[in-house]
């Protein structure tokens, strides 16, 4: 089960990230998970919004570029070795992880991680086969 992630272009300019977040919140978009990656020249804000399409529209109206990407959201046992177990399954299948980041909330002893692999369908398959729970879009 894939969920939609929005990647947003962030100019390397003071206050740009703040402006983007403000714009989304003014328009009632709720951000459930986010991470920011930056180079010296620009940044990419990656986020899971409660309404991906709406978020994309709000940003487009504000002249901000964004693209949607499919990612998977993995439930991880909130205990020592929980993350390691997931990573081992994926790595053993020959899949590389491009990036991952955590959701803001947690739910009955589980942490929720966003995972972007170079081969998302395969990652989904091996994780499911190994009994790792993946989140549905409507659970977010």
């Amino acid at each position, binding site marked *: 089960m894939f969920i939609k992630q929005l*990647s947003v*272009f962030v*100019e*390397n*300019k003071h206050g740009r990230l703040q402006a983007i977040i403000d714009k989304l919140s003014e328009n009632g978009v709720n951000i459930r998970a986010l991470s920011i*990656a930056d*180079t010296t*020249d*620009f940044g*990419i804000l990656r986020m899971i919004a409660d309404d991906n399409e709406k978020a994309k529209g709000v940003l487009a109206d504000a*002249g*901000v*570029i*964004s*693209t949607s990407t499919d990612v998977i959201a993995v439930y991880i046992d909130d205990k020592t070795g929980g993350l390691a177990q997931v990573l081992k399954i994926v790595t053993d299948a020959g899949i590389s992880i491009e990036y991952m980041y955590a959701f803001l909330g947690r739910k009955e002893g589980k942490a929720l991680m966003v995972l972007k692999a170079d081969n998302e369908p395969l990652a989904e398959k091996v994780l499911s086969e190994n009994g790792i729970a993946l989140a549905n879009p409507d659970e977010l």
Partner: protein
Amino acid sequence: MAVWQPEYELMPREQIREDQSKKLRWQVERMYKTVELFRKRMDEKGLKPEDISGVDDLCKLPFSYKQDLRDYYPYGLFAVPMSEIRRVHASSGTTGKQIVVGYTDNDLEMWADCFARMLIAVGADENDFVHVGYGLGLFTGGFGAHDGAVRIGATAIPISAGNTQRQIQTMIDFGSTVLCCTPSYAMYLGEVIEEMGVKDQLKLKAGIFGAEPWTEEMRAQIEEKLGLKAYDIYGLSEIMGPGVSYECEYQCGMHVCEDNFIPEIIDPDTGEVLPEGSQGELVFTTITKEGFPLIRYRTRDICSLNYEQCKCGRTHVRMNKPQGRTDDMLIIRGVNVFPSQIEEVLLNVGGNVTPNYQIIVDRENNTDTFQVNVEMSEALFAEGMKGIEKTTKLISEKLRSTLGIGPKVNLVNPKSIERSEGKAKRVIDKRKLK
């Protein structure tokens, strides 16, 4: 090889200098008497006409500027009574008030001869039909070409600009052999000729194109579409009009009519004359013009001069195609940078790069900082972090190798570069604000 005025065009260089020195003395002396602004500037420098004995003293003379023509509009810089002015031309330019220039009988003769030299150099003679597609009016282009055609005894077709279908039909019916117009109009004519499928009915053999910048790629396209050889001509109304310099049959730089105009290349910042072959601002002194003469006029065009003897036998110096305008030129850490160079890199780098850019120059700790902002595109962003980084690295490298100085490339939001009247503001030089 045909030459219109071999006595001038083939004159040995030592003699050119002598001839120029004599004419310069004459010009300085008469202008000191008749042109108030020139006299004032000479006096400010403590110079008298007798201090100028020849070309070697040219560098002592004061410069003149486009603004002078506006300040003394309309006739304040004319050097003869208006009864001796036979014709005026004017240009509005892209900014500001129009300027006006005037010609005596001798000036018009001289101009016709300069244009005639080019017509002869590109292989025209009395059997040719010269299609004058420049506007015939206050703009110098049309009358310059027309008078040149009449001077060599060719048949002039003063059709002026516009009405493309009729232009092409006239070319076919009248048998036009030499086309004179702007290069962009020639491109357009070529496209319409292609659509009409009438290329084989044309008798064009040469084209004389000027009055705006054009590239070698445009030359190749025009030559292909119109089936002619395309030549570059240079001129500006302040100095005369088209024919100040022109390409000969070898197309290797434009011969300056040095018996009438002395060119110099100077550093636009310091005003110093630069060593032979250097690139810098082109400055002209009109040494024979009577009605509207100018001493050391700053053209703001950037080019270089080549004094080597040309294969055609003409001894007159060749100027290369102007590389830009001083108005646009930036000097960053001592290196000349033109916005057009950056645009060219962005256009050629390929991929999903937009040519929407802005140059930002500043000064930190006494060193110039140089940043190029490039607008991000949806397509480039979709390439992801690695793709974007690869592209910006490529842009940086290409800019460094083209300019000789590396800017910091910064990606900005689409349409975020400030535009006024549809034109983007390409340069922000914060150094001037301090």
